[in-house]
């Protein structure tokens, strides 16, 4: 059986990890490769790099990052952040990323989903979706959560699947940063609406929260700060899930 995946997210700016990451015994806590390797050793199943570099050198910086990670890290990794066109996406896969995610560009031009999934193979293309409850429905946001789009996340998820993407990375803006748990009602509805894997993101604060996400059939669950700040280790989390009867990859 396929294991439920635990994903660690790293925010990258100018080739460096942002948000203070508190690992002991790291020579350089801002080095994305060293951090990614540490997470691999701890047993994480996948790493997502969100690049927030805004400078003109973005493309070169990202290329260098992807190549270095691909050489040194031996688990799958996903890269995204500000990607707009098929050429840029293809280049990242060629440099060694296993998957690429897009967010705003997919909403602005849904045709890009079809184009990119045909160019890369759908298993390589992830669509990141940020959404928030507006009283009537979960509304899709873009531009890093700044711009409401008037789109219902359930409809958007179905469209993403139809256009050929391989996976949805679903972040709840309501729960993100709260550490009170994933947005289970939204997650449950999105998982029910599509057949492609859905990754839960936003709000993880305890091992129980991961169990809740997997109980509604999320294929994977992502967290950043709780792993960075060592609230609990990935090993502890997986041991808990294993004892709860879930299929997870242990050491």
């Amino acid at each position, binding site marked *: 059986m396929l294991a439920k995946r635990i994903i660690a997210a790293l925010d990258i700016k100018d080739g460096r990890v942002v948000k203070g990451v508190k690992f002991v015994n790291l020579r350089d806590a801002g080095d994305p490769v060293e951090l990614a390797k540490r997470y*691999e050793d701890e047993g994480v199943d996948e790493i997502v790099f969100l690049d927030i570099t805004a400078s003109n050198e973005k493309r070169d910086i990202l290329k260098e990052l992807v190549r270095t990670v691909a*050489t040194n890290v031996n688990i799958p990794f996903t890269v995204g952040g500000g990607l707009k066109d098929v050429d840029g996406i293809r280049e990242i*896969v060629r440099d060694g990323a296993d998957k690429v995610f897009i967010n705003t560009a997919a909403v602005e031009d849904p045709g890009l989903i079809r184009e990119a999934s045909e160019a890369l193979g759908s298993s390589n293309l992830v669509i990141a979706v940020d959404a928030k409850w507006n009283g009537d429905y979960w509304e899709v946001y873009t531009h890093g959560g700044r711009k409401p789009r008037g789109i219902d996340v359930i409809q958007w998820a179905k469209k993403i699947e139809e256009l050929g993407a391989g996976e949805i990375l679903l972040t709840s803006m309501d729960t993100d940063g709260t550490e009170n748990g994933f947005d289970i009602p939204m997650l449950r509805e999105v998982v029910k609406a599509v057949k492609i894997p859905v990754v839960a993101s936003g709000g993880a604060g305890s091992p129980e929260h991961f169990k809740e996400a997997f109980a509604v059939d999320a294929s994977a669950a992502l967290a950043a700060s709780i792993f960075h700040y060592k609230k609990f280790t990935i090993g502890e989390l997986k041991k808990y899930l294993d004892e709860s009867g879930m299929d997870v990859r242990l050491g």
Partner: protein
Amino acid sequence: MSFDTVILDFGIGNLSNVQKVTGGKVTHDTDDISRADKIILPGVGNFGDVMESLSSVKYHIVDAAKEGKYVLGICLGMQLFFGNSEEGDGEGLGIMDGSVKRFEGVRTPHIGWNRLLIRRECPLLQGINDGSYFYFVHSYFVQPKDTDCVVGTTVYGEEHTVRFPSVVWEGNIFGVQFHPEKSSNNGLRLLKNFRELST
């Protein structure tokens, strides 16, 4: 004693971590292939397309396999061992007997971490426990004619399940359906086992 390993370059994807672990040389030069002691066929792409881009070196690979050189096929690289595939029209290397089928009745591609169920001992799997997880990304799987070569299998599917060969071995030829280079310590161990094979 050291052996020269070549990693065949199909022009897609990044092979730097396979190179790092095996100490191999990424190449598609026929002289390199002829000189090598071990050949790794990595695995990204489409069966037909890759066989086409391999056409100039196809017989060098077949000869090397016949001479008893160690060959490791990864994912599509293993599928190329067989005569034909439902994925494309091209003819495979034909160094193993059988064919390549598409998954039916299960969600494809099969992508993620799944268990290797070991049927019997194999030098490639030394030090790797039965039930270990490896990372898979594929929609097709191999069906060897003689199932004796199947040393490991994997089960996939929810209501309907498929058990497919995930490791095959016949003499000097080894194939794995998963990506050892993406499978953390178990994968590194497997690549190290291949590196340490001696004649």
